[in-house]
């Protein structure tokens, strides 16, 4: 679904392009130069299909009986029905309508009851896939795909933990804008932090609001927050879609435990279309099995609280966040709060109306970086060759 109204409102703005995701848009072409996570591996069993929408295009994802995942076009070439309703046979997909059968590379290999030889002339689009960090990745660009970026921070010892994919009704840029924005923590998360009554985190973040820096790095943007009397925290933005929070635990536990974090978290904010984003979050848990169980139990109770539904009720003016029951888990409150501000900006934030200040240095850097790269791409000039973040970064 394209957001037509927003395009009208933003006409003439330099920010017009950065949030668009379709195949014919500048930003959409930029995003298609990278591998994109599209699905959680464990959610796709062998022999199953899934209709997916990624970057404003629809595809058919399926896992062959061999266990290999494939992405092909959304529709059968014959009379256009939705291929995901068909059957997986070996590593092929057979259409439910008239039984045309396609291999994982999109080649039609069977047309029952048709003259032999016809199938060879029919091919639907297919896209390279890989699986990494518990996610299925697709490449939707032209030409040979680049190497899939590795994340050494998540390849070390520990338990790889995949969160449920999280669908929010806002543009992906509302989400990644937030990642380089330390100034929001003291306000957006005030209620969650207030409820952690023994938490020094809010005061620390208040104090740190002016004590942080962000700089462009080989992989994107590195944000450093300095706290008096304890180690700094870092936020990493990886071009184009990932936010990594090296000490997520200190915030997401509501500051109850401000020990050095024992998990690492990275989230990819993947455009479904211009008005919707799915987040795939991966944790590397460096904990005892008991702690892992407790971590997962806390998260399950947060998911059960249904943060998007709570936030929608607040956005509609039916309830206030401060009146939420004390039993709502704190991680759910963090999620509610981020949803309120990011979905609350509208499906696409009206960036041309923004009044940016010093607190927005990260947001400004992010947008400048994107505009620089989009402009270079548009004018066929060299673009930056982004490197994976190393554990030392």
């Amino acid at each position, binding site marked *: 679904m394209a957001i037509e109204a927003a395009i009208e409102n933003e006409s003439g703005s330099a920010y017009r392009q950065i949030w668009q995701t379709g195949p014919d848009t500048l930003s959409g072409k930029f995003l298609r130069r990278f591998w994109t996570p599209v699905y959680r591996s464990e959610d796709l069993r062998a022999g199953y299909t899934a209709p997916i929408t990624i970057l404003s295009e629809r595809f058919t994802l399926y896992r062959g009986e061999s266990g290999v995942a494939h992405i092909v076009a959304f529709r059968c070439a014959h009379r256009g029905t939705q291929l995901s309703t068909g059957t997986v046979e070996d590593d092929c997909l057979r259409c439910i309508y008239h039984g045309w059968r396609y291999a994982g590379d999109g080649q039609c290999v069977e047309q029952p009851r048709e003259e032999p030889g016809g199938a060879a002339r029919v091919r639907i689009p297919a896209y390279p896939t890989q699986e990494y960090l518990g996610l299925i990745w697709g490449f939707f660009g032209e030409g040979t795909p680049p190497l899939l970026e590795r994340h050494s921070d998540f390849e070390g010892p520990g338990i790889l933990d995949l969160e449920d994919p999280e669908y929010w009704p806002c543009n992906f840029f509302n989400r990644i*804008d937030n990642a380089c*924005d330390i*100034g*929001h923590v*003291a*306000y*957006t998360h005030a209620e969650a932090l207030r409820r952690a009554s023994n938490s020094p985190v809010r005061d620390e973040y*208040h104090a740190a*609001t*002016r004590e942080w820096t962000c700089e462009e790095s080989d992989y994107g943007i590195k944000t450093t927050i300095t706290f008096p009397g304890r180690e700094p925290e870092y936020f990493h933005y990886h071009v184009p879609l990932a936010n990594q929070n090296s000490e997520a635990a200190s915030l997401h536990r509501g500051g109850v435990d401000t020990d050095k974090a024992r998990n690492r978290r990275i989230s990819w904010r993947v455009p479904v279309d211009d008005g919707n984003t799915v987040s795939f979050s991966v944790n590397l848990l460096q904990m005892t099995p008991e702690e892992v169980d407790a971590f997962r139990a806390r998260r399950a109770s947060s998911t059960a609280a249904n943060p998007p539904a709570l936030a929608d009720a*607040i*956005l*509609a*003016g039916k309830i*206030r*966040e401060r009146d939420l029951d004390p039993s709502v888990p704190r991680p759910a409150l963090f999620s509610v*709060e981020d949803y*309120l*501000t*990011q979905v*609350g*900006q*509208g499906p696409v*934030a*009206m*960036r041309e*109306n*923004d*009044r*940016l*200040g*010093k*607190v*927005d240095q990260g*947001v400004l850097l992010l947008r400048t970086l994107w505009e620089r790269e989009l402009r270079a791409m548009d004018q066929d000039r060299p673009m930056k060759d982004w490197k994976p973040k190393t554990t030392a970064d």
Partner: protein
Amino acid sequence: MTAPDGIDFVHTGPGTIAGDYMRSFWHPIYIAADLLPGWTRPLRLMSEDYTLYRGESGQAHLIGFRCAHRGTQLSTGWVEDDCVRCLYHGWKYDETGQCVEQPGEAQPFTSTVKIPSYPVQEYLGLIFAYLGTGDPPPMPRYPGLERDGVLETSTYTRASNYFNNIENGVDLYHVAWAHRDAHVQHSLDYMPGAMTVTESEWGITAAVTLRNGSIRTNQFGMPNVLHFVASQGRVDNWSEVFGWRIPIDDTRHVSFNVRWRSAVGESGVRARDRGWDPTDEDPERITKISETVLRGDVRMRDVEEAGILVNVQDDVTQVGQGIYADREHERRGQTDIGVVLLRQIWERELRAFSEGRSVKEWTFPEQLAATSGAR
């Protein structure tokens, strides 16, 4: 959607003629008792979004929908004194929309940041706002509603353009049929051709003589107010009703209603003792029943919710016209003289307004009687 000669009175978004004209009046926007100190509400009116809040002082305020900083929805923030603080980065605005704090900034630039704000007044248990530009006109007063009595407020939302409902208000004849199964059956006794409509100082006076010789009179106030007397068929059980129809956007509208009852006499005492329970006219229930009728799941005659039957009937007929009544293909007759006069007045006023000529100043006079026709 528009009148035959092209005057458009159904679209009211910013920059439309009808929208600008509507914005030159005060409108009720919320029920005062439903907004507690320290609370905010996101509001949509005439296709624009606003933040309504009541400061800790008890004063209600109306300001822009989004924070000027990075545009998040201000209603999710905090009320502090008579200010609102944004949830995202803590920018704080006073009731004039002036930014007064930017906590993350070492060198704040608050004086250069101001979001829109709108005059607000409370009257008759409703919060009224002026959404236009320039100085607001005087707030209309209704002396009859300021008398001793019991004042009840209610509201409903209807899934149609507001003009469907405005036209319904000057259409006396619909009462005989749309409400034939309700407790206003006496209104069935219309004499053919016994209806008159005349332009008044306030808008339109529509009157009809019933077979019993009595007269039912509705008063319509420009641009969007209906005033009538409800009697439930009995002279001793009457109330004065005012209803304002305000577009939420072009496809939905909200009505705010005030019902005044005398606090004396048998029915007055009953009303006073009973108190007012807004769930008597549960708007969501009205919509739900109306939808089942429009879907064909139940018949109008099978709806037995006596308390809200009239509202359901109005909802069914007005939403049943479509979001926008098809005014190009309608076949008007003698009974539609009220609708015709209404459109003539609206077209005249909108044309004058759009050409910068003076428009009529509508006033509610001391004496402007509505009558129920009950005997």
